[in-house]
């Protein structure tokens, strides 16, 4: 804890990350109080003010049915961050574990696990999502499930290749010689050494996961209007570039801020997780 605080305080970039993320989370949590038009998160249309460029009181302009983009972005953070967090919270542990196990244990285990991963990876995500739709209710939860299903194998491959290299290191031998269990070697010895790559990928994936929501909602899975989500806002707005640029640019910047914050934080996290106490 002390170490974490020390690392955060010493590196101004990490601190920036903390501040950005705090702002984003704060904005999402207290959107009801901050948003100038809280009702614009829902079923509101205002054709007197639609498709307006940024101007008072619409800081970020209005969308095609006249809702305040700034307010919607604040609310969108809620669902987008939730989506990102949930997907990563499931996909990363699953993918990482499989990759570690396959890479470390080798033999038949590796063979079977990696071929299963291959199958998942080689089916295009859209097909996977569509088939989910055939089988499941089109709710947000199932949408997250679908994204998770297409996400974990990336971590598996990443960690698998790292593990193959790490297991040749002396410290793995040392642990084996001591008689440490496979679980220990995999999770306590090798995993910490894969953390930099995993964390880096995770901080980037946050952006991707937020964006994937747009393709999910294109398929009718996931977030449905009028609930705002950043991915759909960016994606839908692109049709109206360059004229109604604010429709794309502000949600895009909102994602950038979140991803940027997490990335800075990720770098710090790497240092904090650096040494296992």
């Amino acid at each position, binding site marked *: 804890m002390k170490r974490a605080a020390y690392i955060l305080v010493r590196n101004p970039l990490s601190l920036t990350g903390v501040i950005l993320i705090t702002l984003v989370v704060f904005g999402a949590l207290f959107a009801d109080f901050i948003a100038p038009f809280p009702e614009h998160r829902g079923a509101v249309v205002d054709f007197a003010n639609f498709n307006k460029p940024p101007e008072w009181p619409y800081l970020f302009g209005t969308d095609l049915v006249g809702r305040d983009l700034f307010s919607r972005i604040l609310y969108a953070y809620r669902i987008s961050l939730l989506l990102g967090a949930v997907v990563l919270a499931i996909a990363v542990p699953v993918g990482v574990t499989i990759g570690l196990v396959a890479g470390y244990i080798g033999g038949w285990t590796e063979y079977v696990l990696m071929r299963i991963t291959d199958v998942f990876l080689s089916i295009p995500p859209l097909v996977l999502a569509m088939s989910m739709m055939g089988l499941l209710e089109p709710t947000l939860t199932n949408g997250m499930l679908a994204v998770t299903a297409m996400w974990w194998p990336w971590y598996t491959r990443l960690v698998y290749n790292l593990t193959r290299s790490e297991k040749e290191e*002396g410290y793995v*031998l*040392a642990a*084996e*010689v*001591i008689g*440490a269990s496979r679980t220990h070697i995999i999770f306590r010895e090798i995993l910490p050494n894969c953390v930099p790559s995993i964390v880096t990928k995770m901080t980037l994936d946050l952006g991707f996961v937020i964006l994937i929501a747009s393709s999910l909602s294109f398929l009718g899975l996931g977030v449905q209007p009028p609930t705002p989500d950043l991915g759909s806002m960016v994606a839908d707005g692109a049709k109206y570039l360059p004229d109604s640029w604010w429709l794309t640019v502000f949600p895009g910047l909102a994602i950038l801020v979140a991803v940027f914050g997490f990335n800075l934080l990720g770098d710090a996290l790497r240092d904090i997780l*650096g040494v*296992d*106490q």
Partner: protein
Amino acid sequence: MTGLLSLRNVSKVFTLGQREIRAVDDVSFDVEEGECLAIVGESGSGKSTIANMILGIYPPSMGTIAWRGDVLPARRELRHRRAIQLVQQNPLSSLNPRRSVGASLRLPLDVHGIGDRSHRADRVGRLLEEVGLPAEFMNRSPAALSGGQRQRVAIARALASESDLVVLDEPTSALDVLVQARVLKLLAELRDKRGLTYVFITHDLSVVRNIADRVAVFEKGCLRELGTTEAIFANPQHAYTRRLIAAVPVVTDAEVALRKRLMENDNAAA
């Protein structure tokens, strides 16, 4: 009677592209319970390879290794793991750079359930102190240790499991003499107290002289000579052994004299 550990016709061949390297060539010897067997030999003579095979890090290409009369399987069981420990030659890579010294030291305690849980941290501290390091070092990362300090951590870790046999691959060559003395003493004490057995790989014949019961001399993957320390130093049979002893750097005049004597023998024999 077979010893605690016996190697029978053990060979190890590495393939390097098209080429084959016979790192260990048809070696047989026993390690008796409670003894300290030193393995000396030129660099690249296969000492570390033997150590790695004893530990089951890789299997011998030929031959068998038996533990208390049972041939050791390729996949070692936990009891074998506990019974045989290793101090690796390369102290940097044998410590996980992402785990603190304390975490690395605690591992054998946890794995083999040594001591009760709440006192393990203290135990780790004591282990560090035993090898001459302050207990606070348990919070450090290996990167912040000097070469010798790392080596001492590795030794402490091998001792932590309270095993029957410890294979020490150049355990003290990175240590200064004071610490070396201390570690050697510790090793000797533990041997007495717990009846440990050591396979001690080193170049330092002065050390060998002072702690080993028997010495095995290797050259080019072959076992050249195996005898009691006394015998080897008093009357080395093999020319290579004599050369080894003659080359030892020494600090006292008495030692210079001994060296001279052996060198003369060698010249006479040649």
